[in-house]
């Protein structure tokens, strides 16, 4: 690991206002509300950046538009944008996203985490690492990594 911060002075953006969902006065008890972009985004927006006290939303690492979800086919893809190209934290961020979604979505879902094309020096390697079941499982055996992930996820369980 490099000593010192990878990106010492990131740009912090304003948080988007929480979009409150309109609650109809008459609720149909049996109507199904599908899992949608905003719901996925609500799960991950408050995850803390591994090296700064800001949320991924504030750093614009993730945005609502960068989430694809298909509830019927149980598929979700999150594309995130590291703050700098050589960010070695990209894998940790990706791991956090994966863990958080694994814990928040029904088991039927397949989660795909990707770095946005052209935003990272070793894009292909990171993508491969993040979507390799074995390597993710191995990473989660590492107590240091798990501690780090848990710390980043803590704010998202509001």
């Amino acid at each position, binding site marked *: 690991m490099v000593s010192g911060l990878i990106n010492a002075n990131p740009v912090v953006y304003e948080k988007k206002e929480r979009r409150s969902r309109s609650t109809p006065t008459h609720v149909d008890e049996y109507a199904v509300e599908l899992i949608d972009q905003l719901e996925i985004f609500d799960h991950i927006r408050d995850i803390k950046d591994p090296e700064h006290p800001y949320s991924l939303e504030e750093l614009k690492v993730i945005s609502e538009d960068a989430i694809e979800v298909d509830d019927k086919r149980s598929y979700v893809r999150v594309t995130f944008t590291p703050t700098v190209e050589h960010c070695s934290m990209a894998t940790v961020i990706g791991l956090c996203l994966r863990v958080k979604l*694994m814990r928040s979505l029904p088991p039927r879902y397949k989660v795909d985490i990707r770095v946005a094309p052209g935003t990272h020096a070793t894009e292909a390697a990171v993508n491969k690492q993040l979507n390799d079941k074995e390597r993710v499982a191995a990473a989660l055996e590492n107590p240091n990594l798990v501690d780090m992930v848990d710390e980043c996820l803590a704010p998202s369980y509001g």
Partner: protein
Amino acid sequence: MADSIQWIQHVELYVSSSATPSQQVASVDAVATLLKNDLLTLEALVREMEMYLTTTDSIIRCRGILLLGELLAQLTLKPLDSTSIHSLIGFFTERLADWKALRGAIVGCLALLRRKSDVGRVTDSEAKAVAQSYLQNLQVQSLGQHDRKLSFQLMECLLDRYAGAMADLGDNLVYGICEAIDGEKDPQCLLLVFHIVESLAQLSPGPLANFAEDLFEILGCYFPIHFTHPKGEDDDVKREELARALMLAFASTPLFEPFSIPLLLEKLSSSLPSAKVESFKYLSYCTAKYGPERMAKHAEALWASLKDTTYLSPQSMLSMEPESMSRMNFQESDVMTEAFVLLQEVIRQYGEFISLIIGDNDINAFLISLNQYKGFDDIPLQVKQKLHAVGHILSACAKASAAMCNKVFESFFPFLMDGLGLSVAQPSQNNSYLDEECFSLAKFKFGPLYLCIELIAACKSLTLSLYNCTSIHDFPHQRWCSLLSSFSESLVKAFVSMLRSNVADNEQSAYVYCGVKGLQILATFPGSFTPVSKSVNDNIFLELVSIITSDSNKTFEWTSALKALVEIGFSIDKCLDSEKAASFESTVVEKIVSLISSLDSAIPLSLRLQAAFEIGATRKDFMLRVVRGLDESIDTNFSAVFDHGNHKSDELTIKLLDTYSQKVLPWFLEIGGSEEVQLNFALRIWDKIENFRALNLSPPEFTSISYQDLLGATMTAMKKAVASCSEESQEIIINKASGVLFSSTVFGSMGFKSGSSILKEEGLQQTQNYGNSSGRDEWLTSLFASVVVALRPQTGISNRKMILQLFITSLLNGHVPSAHALGSLVNKLPLETKGIKSSRSLSLNEALDMIFHSFVGTCRDDSTSGNDGSGVNINSLRLNTSRIQLEFNTVIGLAWIGKGLLMRGHEKVKDITMTLLSFLTLDCEAGVSKQFQNLAEVLDEEGVHQLMKCAGDAFHIIMSDSGECLNRMYHATVRPLYKQRFFSTIMPILLSLVVKSESSFVRSMLYRAFAHVVSDTPLTAILGEAKKLFPILLECLSTLSKDVSDKGIIYSVLLVISGILLDKNGQEAAVENASSIVNQLIELTAYPHMMAVRETAIQCLVAVSELPHARVYPLRTKVLRTISKALDDPKRIVRQEAVRCRQAWASIASRSIHF
């Protein structure tokens, strides 16, 4: 004398460095107590302590002196003779030079200087000596934080309490203080420093003159107050507090003026908004303190910076609410707000300032440039911002005083009128202008229009302030006033023509807003100061009313016109202007009232009623007029319903009645005073009913829904009206009502012979006829019930017996309002009747006897065994196959009566509950069934089950709060904690019945009753029993979850459980049942019929995870497995809760995310 050994020990303890701080505090307290109680004299103490006070070991000396100082600080209220004080202060003064043992000396000086004169005070010369020693010996800035703080406190105390002595010290003092405070950074100390400077400036023969610049140099560095470490440990001193203290110090003497004003003006150009805000605040405050002479030379600089902030680069945002988009509704930034405050202050202090504004080239050029824009939308946003700012500046100038107003008007008003194309009106055309379109809208440029309205508004507020404080008689001779009056007529014309234009698009609504506002301002000038003549004034009223009456499609215009009229009404009420009030009443109020009943109006009734109520609310006699209109309208509509069966009138009447009960009656209740309106309303309704009776009319199709609504609305209005009356008026109403009721032929022939039961067969037949056939009689009884429900307990009722009988009869026929009335009656009846016992008065016990007797009925022959007179004997209820319904009605009636009794805390409620319970357990085929034999015979199984369910739900009636009756609004007698009491009596009975019951259906019904009772009991009562209740609650949930229709009950029981789980004592109870709780909750997380149930169940699971680890750990796997299913719940809220719950349970053990 106290045991000297003992207190010396305390002293030693304090002085020694080994003792803990708390021990030291304790020993100071102990010695101080001795001193206070005169068990030890100060002299003896000092003598004994000599060694500690004079030793060469500086640490011990320091502790010794500090002890003496702290002791003195505790003795501030104990009188001391002057010699002691003299020698003590002398000692401490001297010790100030001892830098190694300084703290004790400062504490001692402070304690002595703070003494009040009645307990012995330090003299001026001694104080002076202290100050001299202070100035000579203390190097404040080289001390630690706490010592610095103490020394500043000492200086503050000297300046505050010995100002005279300090003034003698002259330059020396100022110099010393400058030295002491220079470079201070600690917020707490700074607070003291600022205060010291302030006090210093106030010393009488100001020694400050020579040092003002030096002192200000030190002070000026702190502006603006800004914390570099925002989250420091000194959170106790707020930035605002410091900023305010510094501001006071800045403004403490006019001598600072040559230095402070340039500094503040310079800081205005800072890029930090907070610095700007601060600067404006300080400037406003300093302007007020320094006085006009000193500020005069800064006027130009001030205007330049004000202009820069407000006009050249205004920071305001157009408010984004959709309805205000078309108006000049700007949200000013803080900087701008403060700038306007300064502007006002400067103008108030220094009138000449205004010539700068009037003569300003930029502003004049801007005004001319405004003429190039035509409509509202042509003006670009920046120009709008500037327009807003200029409007604000001009109005601030005009508001300041009459003279200023004159100047502003002279310089700008004619120009604005030119811009609008208005001229002084020719008086020849009198009224005709209201009928013709004199102006085309395109002529009015928005810029001048807006400024013109701002100016008139400023005039009005000036007039109001003058009107309130002085009596200026030359008012109409003021230049602005004559200017305004000469233009007023053409202005009114212009405003009216803006309203008349038929285009309702966005651009025009800005004009509509201006038009309405202009008219409103012109019409709200107080009394004799009005610049508009009476006829013009009337025309304004007419114009606004015509908007209200003509068309509601242009909603914006309609609402703003109504708002303007309401404002005008309030202003008339405030200014006590009788002439205007009269014309307002004749033109506005009359017209609006006539709207209520007009049939062919294009405006929906609800809007008409809203207009009438709002206009009426401006003044009481207007409201009375509106009420009269409402009454008439209700009358005609009632007749229409009853005579012609007019369905349209149904709806109208309901709306009218709703206005009455929701708006008018509460309004009268709020303003207090007479209750004429309520009384009259109730009596009118009864008159009406009486007339219909006489004519033998009845509403057609009385089963239709709108008819039921009408009855409901009438009942609510009646209840509210009666409830807000006093006892006397209520008596009048009830007498009237019973007169109408009992004069009727039907009720007359019902066989109400005193004491005899009406429930003989033929009587019953009659009552049944009544129940089925005549809607009119239902009207009568329902209205009568609403009167009875709302009575006060003290109100005398004659004919009680008959009334009671009536209600019992109609109740047995399924009339629920009668049940309410019976409940209210037993709740409010007096326990004893005083005076002679007549057949007409009735005590509670007699009433109850009557009620039970009626329910018991006539079939005594086959019930001799069961009826011992203690309660109601079910067995003897008349049971006919045709009267299954009767049993239901009995149960409902008993529930309401029981509620009434329970609320007043009467013991008979026990009998009623027992009866209800016996209904509940009806199904016990084997055991007690003998009593119910004939019931079982006549009712089929389904019927019995229905009846049992009904009895279970009766407990809901008993426990829940009702809006219909028996609440505080309807004057119910409520004993405190009645719910808790009922809970604790019924619980053991229910529990034992559950144990005894064999049939599962009976048990489920018992659970039902149990659920109702538990969910309406306050949580605190349940917590005490939580341990016992848990198993039943869980059992209850599992039973109830079988039937979809019980989802509401499940939810309320679940809420009780979550309440218990969130409480500390409740958690202890939950520990033992953890596993069964979790099992039950897991089942409910998949409850398909109600989302709230699933959500609450999951929340409860989260709460369970907080229980002791050993208890919940074994359940973890099971919970996690369930929750992963809940993550796929159809409802989003449930999924969110599931994520939270999953995290809570996953994190109670080693990290593992495999679930």
